[in-house]
Every structure is written in C-alpha cells, then in structure tokens.
C-alpha cells in the first residue's frame, strides 16, 4: 500500500496560502461544531451547576433530559405564566373595578364586612338544649353567650330541599317551587325530581357507529325566585356558597358556588352503590344499590363495571371497565384492578378516593371518583363500591360556578364527594356496609367540607360565605335507633359500638364552632343554624293505603296496589293520592291527566273531608296519634307555584312518617307499620315539632326567628333593602356590630 509521506518542509507562499486556508477551515469546520456544542451546553448550565462534583468533571456535555428538563421548564413556565396572568390581572383590575362601580345600581353601605353562615343540616333544638345543659357543647354555649341562641322556625314541609330553598330565597315554597324532593308529572302521575330538569340530547352528527352530540343536554335548576347571593352579587357583594342544597345545576352570580343536594352521581341517579359479589343472586336490593355477580377466573374474580351511557355511540351503551380481584390469603389483602387503576385493599377497610376513567370516544373520557371496600373474602368475596361521584377535578357535568371552581377546590384540598346525598345511607340500610364504615365515610366527607370551608374563609375579605354540613342530618337519620328505647330498628342497641354517634357528632361540630369563634374578625357576623330539627321514625304511615281503605283511591280490576309509582291505580275512580313525603294531591279535572275532582267547590269539599278524617288519625296498634294535623296548602302560603304543591300537607306526629311503601307509590299493606331500617330518624313531620336552631355572635332583634328570615337578613347586613317578594323579615333592625361595639365600650 503506497503510503504518501509528507515532509515537514513547505515553501513560504505555500505556507501563507495554506495558513490562511487552514484558519478558514478551522473557523468553519472545526470551531463551529465545537462552538454549537458548547452553546448547547451553556444553555443548560444552570442545571449543570446543580449537578455538583460530577459536573465539574464534565461541564460542557451533560444534557439534562426530559424529566429534569421539565422540572426546570415547567417551573419556569409556571412562573412565566403567573407573571403574565398577574400583570394582566393588575392591568385589568382598574378596568374591572370601574365596570363594577358603573354597574352598581345604588351604592350599598354595608353594616358588616363578612357574613359567615354555617349550616348543620338537621341540628335539633331539643338535643342541642339537652347537651348544652349537660355542658357537652361549650363552644355553642360560648357563641350563645356572645350573641344569641334560639329555636328557628323551619319551612313547611320541613324537608331539607324545601327548607334550604326558603333559606336562600327568603320566600315560602309557593314562590320557589320546591315542596318536596319529588314533584309529579300530571300527565302520567309519575314522580320527578322537583329541583332539576335533565333533558336529552336530540341532535347528533352521525358517523357510522359513532355520533357527535351537537347540543348539550338541557340541564335546568327548577327552583324559582332568587337566592340572596344573586341579589348581593347584583350590588357587587361577593358570596361563596358551599354545598347549600338545591344548587344543582349551579347558577351564575358574583361569587363562587359548589352544588349539593340533588346533584347526581355519574350514572344520573341520586346515588347508586354497587356490590360485586360471588353470593348467589337472591333478591336484588330494593332500593339504592345494584348487585353485580363476580365470576371466578383462575385464582381471582372478574366482573364488568358499567358506567354512564356513552352518548357518542348509537344506542348509548354504557361505558365499561373490566374489574378484577385477586385475593392474597397469606397477606390478608385483595388486589383490585379496575381499568388501568390498581389498588391493594385490606378487608373491611374503606379505601381512599379512587379515580376511574371511562373512555367515551378518542380523547373523550368521563371521570369518576369512588371508594371501595372488600366486605368479605372468606367463603364468598364481595366488593362494595360507593356511588360513582362526578370527579370534581374533571367534572363531567357542571357542579360549580364558575365551572372551574370545583376543579380549583380539588386542587386545593384534594378529591371530595360531589354527589348531592353523598353519604351512602342505602348501603347501611341494606347492611352492605356497617355502622363504622358509614361513620367513617360521613366524617371523611365532613372533613373535606371543613377543608373547603377554611380555604374559602381564609381568602374572603368581604362578602358572605355559606356552607352546609350534612353529617348531622345523615347520622341522625341512621343512628336515631340507638338514641331511644324500643325503636323497632334499635335491636342490639346495648352492643352497638356507635350508640353515641349522634352525641359524638354534636361534640365534633362543637369543636368546629370553637375554631370558627377563634377566627372571627371585628367586622364579622357568624350565624350557625340548622334547617330543621329531628325526630324518631318508628312507624311508617301509608297514606295511599288509607286513601284506598277510605274510598278516595281505587285500584284497577284484580290488582292489589303493590306495584310502585301508583301503576295499579284506576285514575277514573281516584280522588286523591299520595306521592313523595310531604302530602296528598287531589286528582283534579283539567289539571291531572285523568282528573275526576272538579276544581272549585268539589275540590274544596274533598279537601275538607280529608283534613277532617286524617287530622288526629290514630295508630290503633300503638294507641297513639299518627297524624297531628293536615294542612290546606293554599291556606299556608300564596305564590305563583302553588299549583305545583301537594294540595294537602300532612303533619305527622313525632315518631311517624310517610312509610317507605307509600313514598314509592304503593297502596297495598297496612296503613301503619314498623320502620325496621337503619334509617330510623326523620323530620318530615309537623314542622312545629322539629324546629331548627340559630346561634349568632351578635344579638338578633327578633323573638321568633325563622329560616325564611335569613335571606332578607343577609341583604340588610350589606345595606340592601330586601325586595317585596321575600316573605321573610330581617333579624336585625339596626347595625348589630355598632351596637355591640358601643356596648363593649360601656362595659370596659
């Protein structure tokens, strides 16, 4: 191989020529890539500096990869974005302020800076009195000492959706249209949810098997009138409204709101728990839950979780996720896989929130959160799944105003229950979960609520904050059986570990009130209240059975009335029927589809008859009065929605309530029967028997405060005259803070 050998000698011109060339070449060919290389390295120098000793050895070449690169990049991005947003907000602020000032109709002169209303749903006046007297509620006592403590007249009927609607609008039900959980469809006599209308999507773009909804389904809040926060917002007073019932779907106003009672689960129901089980399919749950068989698969079990219906596919089949359970007998644990989510569960221990994603279409997922519990894993295996809550972080339906508020709260405090009636009372009724699990679930939800309340309170400098805590209601419903002797559902009371659940909860709330008092500022008014009280639910009254026995309701030939939703009723011979919890409807000609009672004189006559016969109705078996009084709704209040109301409201005696069968529209069976469910306390009775409570850190000017007075009071405290359509009266005639401060000076 001829090797070319080059000597070290070169002529001067050659040298000059080549030296220049070499420089050129060096500049362009060698130096540049080195330079580019170095430049890249310099870009990442900040990261390299962090690398310490290793980097000192290799300062130039290290390249921080995606992970750490992202760490830097995203944090710079966040900083940059916030700077931009902040700059934007600051620049926009004068403009927004100007707009607000211009839009302000009359400048209100607020008496106070912040109004904080905390609602403990169902806190009972009688129980509160008892435990105050026993010194078990020191912080409630302290609050009463600071201002006032009083019983609070509830709504008629005394049910949460009605009561809280009257609370927020300051109006009687005839003006806000919520008379019960249920309303009836006059065309079919079928019940419907009174507060929300959920429509269906009727226009699609079809693409073979797929279809694209061209319109959002109608979703409307049916509560009429205007809540006080809307009116305050019209005058630029900010309100945060957390979980006040009958706020789904959320309304737009100046403030933020998280929906509550009657917000559905992802399946569109009011809360359907699921039980995956190997137990043979016996009787399915009568109410509330669904039983899904688990099939054995090798050393594990499998089933399919059916989620919400998929609007993107013709026929709207449910979206499905595979579910599998593997039992590790040695470790006494079960491995649950649902879709691509896996979790390890200890038997009889409720999991934390688990996020599930149902895939509807490419790039479209519907997200849910749920809690799981292996209820047994010996001979049989059963897995309890709590109702599929709408994931607050990615809500599939509007559950807050502004729409991102639910997401914001989830980012701030973590996942939280979004279902209206989130505490799974039915699972406890059916014995799927036990007392302890129900309490754990209820307390966890309560703590979530406290966390969101704190987050809101810390950030609110002026305006109103209203938050409703549901635990009082749910725990009294489910644990009343331990509170008194001889409750039909109170078997095994002596051995119950949670016999004092109600008292424990009142004390828990008392501690929270202590925290509230400690955090009060000078310009704050704090009101702690409940929408109604509580009573025992020992005996169910089937009003439809009574109507049948007394000739006001007739059945179709050969039927016994045991079908749900009044399906076996012969409407052509029926004058009155009961639906829901509150009362009776007349079958009025021209109003109901097959009405037979002529409006006017005849209707009045039937009403009077029913009032006379039912008032004082005696439960012969127990020798007690079951119905104290029946009220003619039209005589109780007037308003544009009176037509939607039951014609008669039934005031049950303490210990009685509409029976379970009657509420679902059955007419068979006895008129009076024992209530054997864990759901053992209730409040849908004569409202005079179940007043709520009100505590305030300043004295109020009224002797007979009512729930309906709160809305006008909130307006008044912010210098706004309540509008004439409100039925409630303000609780303060004068500025309570000015009076307190003056009083304070005197005593000091």
């Amino acid at each position, binding site marked *: 191989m001829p090797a070319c050998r080059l000597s070290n000698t070169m002529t001067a011109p050659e040298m000059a020529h080549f030296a220049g060339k070499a420089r050129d070449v060096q500049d362009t060919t060698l130096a540049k890539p080195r330079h580019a290389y170095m430049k890249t390295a310099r870009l990442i120098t900040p990261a390299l500096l962090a690398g310490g000793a290793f980097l000192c050895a290799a300062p130039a070449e290290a390249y921080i990869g995606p992970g750490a690169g992202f760490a830097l990049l995203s944090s710079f991005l966040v900083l940059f974005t916030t700077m931009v947003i902040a700059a934007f907000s600051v620049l926009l602020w004068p403009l927004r302020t100007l707009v607000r000032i211009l839009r302000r109709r009359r400048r209100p002169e607020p008496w106070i800076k912040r109004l904080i209303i905390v609602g403990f749903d169902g806190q009972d006046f009688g129980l509160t009195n008892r435990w105050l007297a026993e010194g078990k509620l020191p912080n409630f006592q302290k609050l009463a000492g600071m201002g006032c403590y009083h019983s609070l007249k509830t709504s008629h009927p005394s049910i949460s959706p009605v009561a809280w609607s009257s609370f927020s609008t300051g109006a009687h039900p005839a003006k806000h249209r919520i008379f019960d959980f249920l309303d009836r469809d006059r065309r079919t006599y079928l019940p419907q*949810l009174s507060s929300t209308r959920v429509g269906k999507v009727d226009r699609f773009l079809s693409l073979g098997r797929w279809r694209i909804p061209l319109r959002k389904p109608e979703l409307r809040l049916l509560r009429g009138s205007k809540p006080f926060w809307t009116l305050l917002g019209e005058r630029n007073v900010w309100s945060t409204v957390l979980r006040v019932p009958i706020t789904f779907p959320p309304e737009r106003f100046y403030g933020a709101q998280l929906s509550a009672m009657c917000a559905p689960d992802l399946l569109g129901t009011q809360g359907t728990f699921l039980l995956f089980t190997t137990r043979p399919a016996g009787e399915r749950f009568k109410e509330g839950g669904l039983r899904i068989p688990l099939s054995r698969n090798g050393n594990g079990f499998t089933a399919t979780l059916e989620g919400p219906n998929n609007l993107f596919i013709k026929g709207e089949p449910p979206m499905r996720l595979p579910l599998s359970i593997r039992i590790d007998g040695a470790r006494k644990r079960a491995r649950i896989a649902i879709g691509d989510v896996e979790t390890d569960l200890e038997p009889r221990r409720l999991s934390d929130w688990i996020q599930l994603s149902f895939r509807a279409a490419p790039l479209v997922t519907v997200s849910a959160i749920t809690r799981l519990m292996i209820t047994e894993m010996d001979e049989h295996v059963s897995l309890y799944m709590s109702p599929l809550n709408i994931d607050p972080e990615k809500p599939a339906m509007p559950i807050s105003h502004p729409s991102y508020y639910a997401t914001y709260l989830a980012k701030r405090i973590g996942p939280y229950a979004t279902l209206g009636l989130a505490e799974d009372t039915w699972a406890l009724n059916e014995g799927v979960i036990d007392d302890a699990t129900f309490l754990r679930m209820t307390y966890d939800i309560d703590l979530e609520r406290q966390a969101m309340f704190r987050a809101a309170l810390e950030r609110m400098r002026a305006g109103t904050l209203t938050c409703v805590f549901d635990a009082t209601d749910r725990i009294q419903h489910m644990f009343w059986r331990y509170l008194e002797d001889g409750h039909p559902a109170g078997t095994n009371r002596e051995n119950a570990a949670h016999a004092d659940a109600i008292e424990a909860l009142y004390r828990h709330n008392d501690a929270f009130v202590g925290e509230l008092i400690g955090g009060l500022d000078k310009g704050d008014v704090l009101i702690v209240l409940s929408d109604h009280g509580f009573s025992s639910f020992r005996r169910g009254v089937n009003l439809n059975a009574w109507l049948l026995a007394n000739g006001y309701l007739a059945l179709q030939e050969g039927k016994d009335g045991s079908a749900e939703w009044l399906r076996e009723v012969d409407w052509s011979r029926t004058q009155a029927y009961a639906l*829901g919890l509150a009362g009776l409807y007349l079958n009025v000609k021209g109003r109901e589809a097959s009405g037979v009672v002529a409006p006017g004189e005849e209707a009045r006559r039937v009403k009077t008859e029913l009032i006379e016969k039912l008032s004082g109705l005696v439960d012969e078996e127990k020798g007690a009065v079951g119905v104290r009084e029946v009220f003619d709704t039209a005589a109780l209040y007037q308003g544009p929605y009176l037509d939607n109301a039951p014609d008669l409201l039934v005031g049950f005696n303490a210990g009685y309530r509409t029976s379970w069968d009657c509420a679902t529209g059955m007419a068979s069976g006895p008129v009076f029967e024992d209530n054997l469910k864990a759901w053992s306390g209730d409040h849908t009775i004569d409202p005079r028997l179940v007043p709520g409570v009100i505590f305030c850190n300043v004295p109020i000017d009224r002797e007979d405060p009512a729930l309906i007075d709160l809305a006008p009071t909130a307006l008044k405290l912010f210098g706004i005259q309540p509008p004439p359509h409100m039925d409630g009266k303000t609780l303060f005639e004068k500025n309570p803070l000015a009076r307190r401060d003056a009083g304070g000076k005197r005593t000091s």
Partner: protein
Amino acid sequence: MFNTKSVKLDKNLVARVKRYAEIAGYSSPEEFVTHALEKELSKLDAAATEEDIKKTLRGLGYIS
C-alpha cells in the same frame, strides 16, 4: 341562567308583565315569563318513561 337569549316583546306587554310579576310574587319579570312559557310547553313535551324516572330517583335516601 347560563345560556340566555333575548326575545323582543311589545312594550305595553312588558309593562303588564312587570306589574303582574310583582303582584304574583315572582322575583323578576323574567321568572314570570319563563314560568308561563314552561307551563305551556309542558303540555307539548314528551313525558319521561318510568325506567328513566326510577333511575333518576334511585338512591334518594328518603324514598328509594
């Protein structure tokens, strides 16, 4: 309400609507108009099926 659209009405009618809304106890003329229209439309709308209703109400603690 989230999605609203304006409808033009005769001025005299609007005046009457306002007057009546106040007397009847509505919180606004809009609420009155909405309610009046809803009542009419409900006669035309298809009723929900029993299956749908049962599903919607499932889990409502007080009832079923």
